[in-house]
């Protein structure tokens, strides 16, 4: 992508490009859909252009935020990138940094996932910008996201305030043909200007910082940050930001509505430009199009003519697709209801990849501890739900605290405590599992913890974890961390060795029964998608097969299909993990070339 002036870029690539073009020198992130490719791209560009920037995957979003913020305090332009629920993890430093302020331009990229497609919630990060009292830009397209990066840095430096850039999935994962400017190396002069009034203000001083913050946000609200389109003389208006504006613009063109509506396209939904409030008074009706919460709507002083989420014109959940926008427009124009938005029939559900080591680990857990409680966590392995091996996922790291809580509650109740087996991925374990594990050890909570260690953050594209030794980084050994948490029983097993994996889980459970406290099994095998190892062979169906289809049903392996009376092995997909060989009750499957 380097050296060319015109390219089709993913929104996240465009944001990465703009951050570097605008001179960011520290960029930190924790991977999460839809934000992951921003830092992926920064790291690639850094290598290709030999930039002297610090670009790193942090252990979690809070740490990422603080690493980027410190560079800003030293005077350098900085950015931290995360998905919306990652911002919950970083909310603590965000709230405080709004008070302390910044020095070098500081951008918080929080990528939202209306729908949601790949998240636990469809929360609106703009509302957290309002909560923290920092300005937020809401791009409609990759092109606009690029332009807003420069504006956000400028605003951040002028008011010494963190600024949020809030793209949504269809900005992050839209591709658009773009004109690119070159990236030039910058070398900011950095020093920590001792400023205890801001950087080290004790509680009693924070009142003054809060007043400063309120002044800043009040002044920013005076700056217009919207454009007027359509027909300003019409008697109906639409206020739109983000991707819904893009839908609106395309719809107005294809339906010929340009003369019938005034459109105010807002770039900065918080603080809502004060000038906009007055302009809206002359319209008979005003429709708000924004995702996913009524952030602009709540700031409007005129309430009687406003249509949006609060009066039910716009549904309060789900993304604002062009269909939803069309229905809202028809209603505003008094053209009658269009009825419910149709939905295409459900497609085939997501499932673990062929050869995924998680599949074998889940099967072994169910075999070793049938009838157990299985709290799980955030990652590819949530798909263990399909296999009946996942009972819950809440948020990063919660598998361990939930297992602890289930144990402590059930122990105190009448009746037997069923086996409890938590599962968590390696990256998620480092991110938020470690404090939970220490707590479980301390409380002597008895459960089995299986850490599914595939050597990467697989769901988001295989980013490194603290256990990776890439680029001269120190690899933090997971075994040492687990033992350091105080865990007394630990085994490391290759889940492809199914009998051994079953045995290890049983032994771990026995330990918890005999000695109390958690026992850990590290189920270790690299993600085949990311390690790109050659296939280990292909499974053959022999004459012994009775066509019971246990292999198809119990593994949900994409390489196995129900054929005519017998399972069918899709040879180009089979990776020869051999799990189905163990699953088959007739012993009718064989691994060839393994």
């Amino acid at each position, binding site marked *: 992508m380097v050296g060319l002036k*015109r*390219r*089709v870029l*993913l929104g996240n690539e465009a944001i990465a490009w703009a951050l570097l073009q605008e001179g960011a020198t520290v960029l930190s992130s924790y991977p999460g*859909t*839809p934000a*992951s*490719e921003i830092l992926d791209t920064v790291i690639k560009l850094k290598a290709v252009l030999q930039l002297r920037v610090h670009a790193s995957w942090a252990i979690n979003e809070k740490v990422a935020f603080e690493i980027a913020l410190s560079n800003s305090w030293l005077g350098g332009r900085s950015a931290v990138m995360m998905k919306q629920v990652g911002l919950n993890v970083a909310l603590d430093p965000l709230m405080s940094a709004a008070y302390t302020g910044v020095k070098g331009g500081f951008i918080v990229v929080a990528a939202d996932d209306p729908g949601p*497609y*790949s998240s636990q919630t469809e929360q609106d990060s703009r509302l957290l910008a309002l909560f923290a009292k920092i300005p937020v830009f809401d791009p*409609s*397209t*990759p092109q606009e996201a690029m332009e807003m990066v420069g504006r956000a840095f400028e605003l951040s430096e002028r008011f010494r305030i963190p600024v949020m850039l809030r793209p949504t999935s*269809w900005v992050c*994962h*839209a*591709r*658009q*043909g773009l004109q690119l400017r070159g990236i030039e190396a910058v070398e900011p002069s950095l020093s920590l200007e001792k400023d205890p009034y801001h950087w080290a203000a004790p509680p009693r001083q924070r009142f003054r910082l809060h007043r400063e913050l309120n002044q800043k946000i009040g002044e920013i609200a005076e700056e217009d940050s919207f454009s007027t389109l359509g027909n300003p003389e019409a008697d109906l208006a639409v206020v739109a930001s983000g*991707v819904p*504006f*893009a*839908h609106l*613009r*395309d*719809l107005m063109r*294809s339906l010929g509505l340009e003369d019938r509506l005034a459109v105010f396209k807002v770039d900065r939904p918080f603080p809502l430009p004060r000038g906009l409030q007055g302009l809206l008074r002359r319209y008979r009706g005003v429709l708000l199009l924004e995702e996913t919460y009524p952030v602009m709507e709540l700031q409007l002083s005129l309430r009687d003519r406003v249509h949006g989420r609060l009066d039910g014109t716009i549904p309060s959940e789900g993304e604002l*697709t*062009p*269909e939803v926008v*069309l229905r809202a427009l028809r209603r505003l124009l008094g053209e009658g209801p269009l009825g419910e938005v*149709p939905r*295409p*029939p459900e*497609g*085939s*559900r*997501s*499932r*673990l*990849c062929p050869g995924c080591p998680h599949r074998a680990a889940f099967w072994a857990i169910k075999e070793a501890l049938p009838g157990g409680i299985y709290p799980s966590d955030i990652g*590819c392995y*949530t*798909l263990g739900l399909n296999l009946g091996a996942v009972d819950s996922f809440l948020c990063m790291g919660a598998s361990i605290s939930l297992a602890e809580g289930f144990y402590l509650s059930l122990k105190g109740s009448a009746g037997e405590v069923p086996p409890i087996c938590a599962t968590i991925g390696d990256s998620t374990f480092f991110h938020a599992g470690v404090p939970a594990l220490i707590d479980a050890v301390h409380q002597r909570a008895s459960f089995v913890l299986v850490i599914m260690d595939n050597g990467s953050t697989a*769901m*988001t*594209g295989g980013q490194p974890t603290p256990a990776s030794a890439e680029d001269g980084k120190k690899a933090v050994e997971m075994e040492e961390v687990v033992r350091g948490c105080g865990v007394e029983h630990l085994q490391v097993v290759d889940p492809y060795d199914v009998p051994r994996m079953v045995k290890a889980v049983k032994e771990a459970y026995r330990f918890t029964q005999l000695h109390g406290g958690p026992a850990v099994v590290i189920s270790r095998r690299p993600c085949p998608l990311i390690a790109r190892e050659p296939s280990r062979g292909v499974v053959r169906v022999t004459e012994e097969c009775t066509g019971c289809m246990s292999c198809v049903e119990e593994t949900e392996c*994409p390489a196995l299909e129900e054929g005519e009376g017998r399972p069918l092995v899709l040879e*180009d*997909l089979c990776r020869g993990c051999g799990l189905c060989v163990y699953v088959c009750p007739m012993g009718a499957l064989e691994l060839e070339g393994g």
Partner: protein
Amino acid sequence: MAFRVVIAGRGGEGVLFVTRVLAEGAFRQGHPVISTETHGMAQRGGSVISQVKIGDFLSPMIRYGEADLLIATSEEEAARNLIYLRDGGKVIRDSRAGGPYDIDARGIAYELDHPRGANLVLLGFAIGELEGLKPGPFEEVITELSPSRWTQKNLEAFRRGLLHRGPKG
């Protein structure tokens, strides 16, 4: 030019790759493009769709009944996503059913000893059927984006699709 394409398949079938090639190839011939693609959880083996809009558009999403072309890796995925197609729009499917725009892409890919190239057979066929897009820039993009060991096979798959005759002759 104003052209809207929906590409439907399952995670792992190369829908993303085809989307990239289509968008970049069209952009290199001077057309503005904007497209969507599926990432993350939704990508793991489940049904995925991409949408590509060529022309003066801002939104990457296609409204139901507005797509000019639906490219699908199977009959099921085609049926599921017909809702996107406009009246008179075309469906290019990987199928042996013998419909006007059906092509046995998987069969051709196996013939080429390149089972994963079925996606590019489909794309080649689609480009051949479209008015106003030259194949050259797409081949250029395929060459740039393919891992070197797949480049030749991918180009062959694309060309086989391109040469396939639909009802246009």
